[in-house]
């Protein structure tokens, strides 16, 4: 493909990656569960878009699969599922995270920095977009932090999903043609099943504990 095209592609992908990062940060400070779910959907949409772009510019057909699956699964299906959960158990928002929003922001800044430090040696061998890898690692770390910081079971699930997003971003950013299709499919279905299982557990926990607060799950000690 001609350099103009590739330049354009790089631009778009970098932009989208940055967008994913921004959304992640928004999720860190956002307390409302439903909003979080929407934000996640948006993030996944961007991921799908990145995949689609790569597929388009390298006309690598099976990466379309990735894009499509992401779109179907992470943009439509999972958010819908989580919405249902949230509505069923009437938990609207995340109260009292361990760290308040400003401190969290500060930490996330630190993680971003770390992400870039870790990613720097590999910028040379990224095919598309600058520092997409850095973004991916940052997504991973912040998602991780999100899991630690949130108390509601659902929001931990969300955080886990954002971590997955980070991984997928890395997968498409680092590998020109994405992973082998079988792997992609496997990963996708695993994520689906995982969310179902988690949903099931969340439901059961809600049933037995009459609460979603995972910090209440602390009877098993020593």
């Amino acid at each position: 493909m001609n350099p103009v095209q590739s330049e354009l592609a790089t631009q778009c992908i970098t932009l989208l990656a940055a967008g994913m990062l921004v959304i992640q940060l928004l999720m860190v400070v956002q307390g409302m569960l439903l909003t979080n779910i929407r934000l996640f959907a948006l993030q996944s949409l961007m991921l799908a878009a990145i995949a689609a772009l790569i597929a388009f510019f390298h006309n690598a057909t099976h990466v379309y699969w990735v894009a499509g699956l992401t779109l179907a699964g992470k943009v439509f299906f999972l958010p819908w599922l989580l919405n249902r959960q949230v509505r069923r158990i009437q938990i609207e928002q995340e109260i009292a995270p361990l760290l308040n929003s400003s401190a969290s922001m500060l930490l996330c800044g630190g993680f971003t920095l770390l992400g870039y430090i870790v990613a720097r040696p590999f910028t040379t061998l990224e095919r598309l977009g600058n520092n997409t890898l850095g973004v991916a690692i940052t997504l991973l770390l912040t998602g991780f932090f999100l899991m630690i910081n949130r108390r509601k079971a659902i929001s931990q699930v969300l955080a886990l999903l954002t971590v997955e997003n980070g991984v997928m971003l890395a997968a498409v950013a680092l590998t020109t043609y994405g992973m082998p299709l079988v792997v992609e499919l496997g990963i996708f279905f695993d994520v689906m099943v995982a969310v179902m299982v988690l949903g099931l557990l969340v439901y059961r926990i809600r049933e037995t504990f009459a609460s979603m607060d995972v910090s209440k799950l602390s009877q098993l000690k020593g």
Partner: protein
Amino acid sequence: MMLLVPILVAPAAAALGCLLARSPRIMAFVNVVAFGTTLALGVDLLRQLQAPPHVVTQWEEFFRADALSVWMVLLISVVSLGSSLYAGRYFQRDLAAGVVTPGRVKEFFVLTPLFTAGMFLVVLANNLGVMWFALEATALSSVLLVALYNRNTSLEAAWKYVILGSLGLALALFGTVFTYAAAIDQKSTALPSFNWSYLMSMAGQLNPRMIKLAFVFVLVGYGTKAGLAPMHTWLPDAHSEAPSPTSAMLSGVSLKVALYALLRFHILTTACLGSGFSRTLLLVFGLGSMCLAAPFILVQTNLKRLLAYSSLEHIGLICVGFGLNSPVTIWGSLLHMGYHALTKPVLFFAAGNIHQTCHTLQMRLIGPGMVKMLPATVVCMGLAAVAATGLPPFGLFFSELTILNGGFAAGHSIVSTIVLLALLGAFCGILYQLTRILLGVPKIARTSDAAPWDGVPAMGLMLGALVVFSVWLPAPLRFVMQRAAGIIGGEAVP
């Protein structure tokens, strides 16, 4: 004759069968048959592997079984067979006691074969990505097994297990992606295959920095699943809350399967970076796990948590063996894997019987005098405990001492000394606790709803195997283990 697919098909078929079956007895029978089949297939695989090239592949290398995989296949089959043998009576008693609903029992008998199939896939898959999602599958199936009793505590345990597990697996996936990227480093075309064998063949050209980073992620990820400290925190909860057959499988093989996945990357990393980086990390984490397990064992109050921590200890020891990375220690670790897989389930089965008799796992409530109530169980448990604390004539003594020897021979005196201290602590704890509950006369008169010989066949089977293999290793087995040690350590064993 191609064996790998059937090994996967048999449990899957069993799962399907149980889905359709009605009575628990039939389901148990189906499970036993399935795992018996896989064991037979595994033994035949063992036979095939004796002939060069000592590798069995299928579906143009999609499935690949080398010595290491075969060793794992055998362990998985034996432990699953044992626990399905035990599970039948166990759940009959639970149903009788009204602890579980028939639906849940069906859930167990459906999920267990899936769990096992997942583990088989992990050890047989050649493609690292496939290996990853197979592990995820085992995690997800076992989560539901842990949550089977639907008590508060079991839900809590399941939640911690699934959250920590999936997070770890996400990290592992990240590492896997990195490995892939490291492989396509200079090329601008897609990788012909993501097979471990292929990567090994081109280990020289992998991008070392990426491999390094990849191994870090994989270590944390699969390490979480394998229960290495400090990522082990889900382990005691899950093991203590799951139904005993599941606990047996979790600590008997599932930990080791995760370790197997880690080992594959360890081999790759060593081939790429040369030994040093990955083995040091394994050594550190192994020692950490051992030193952390010992004090928890010393002051443990819950029977199954005690056993869980002892598993942590053993996994740590195995890691140390691989981390020391001398042929002898690797051989010792493989041996230890096997013996531990034969020992720990017995303890969990016995614990299950005790649990169903006393309806508690708190040792101070169980109180002294179990031997008067469940003599056969206690005898088995005693023997298994003797084995698990590394006393002769059982094999774990040999494997432990072999690892220590290797450590000293390789000049790691300090490491060996630490290992010895940790083992000592664990020994004291287990001896003290078990003496307290097993011997003596019961304070409260309990009527055991467990028949005297319940679970004894399963325990007897495993103990028998343990004793036999402690004094005599069949030549093919020995050969396979030596090959496996060679694969890991890169050189043959004396």
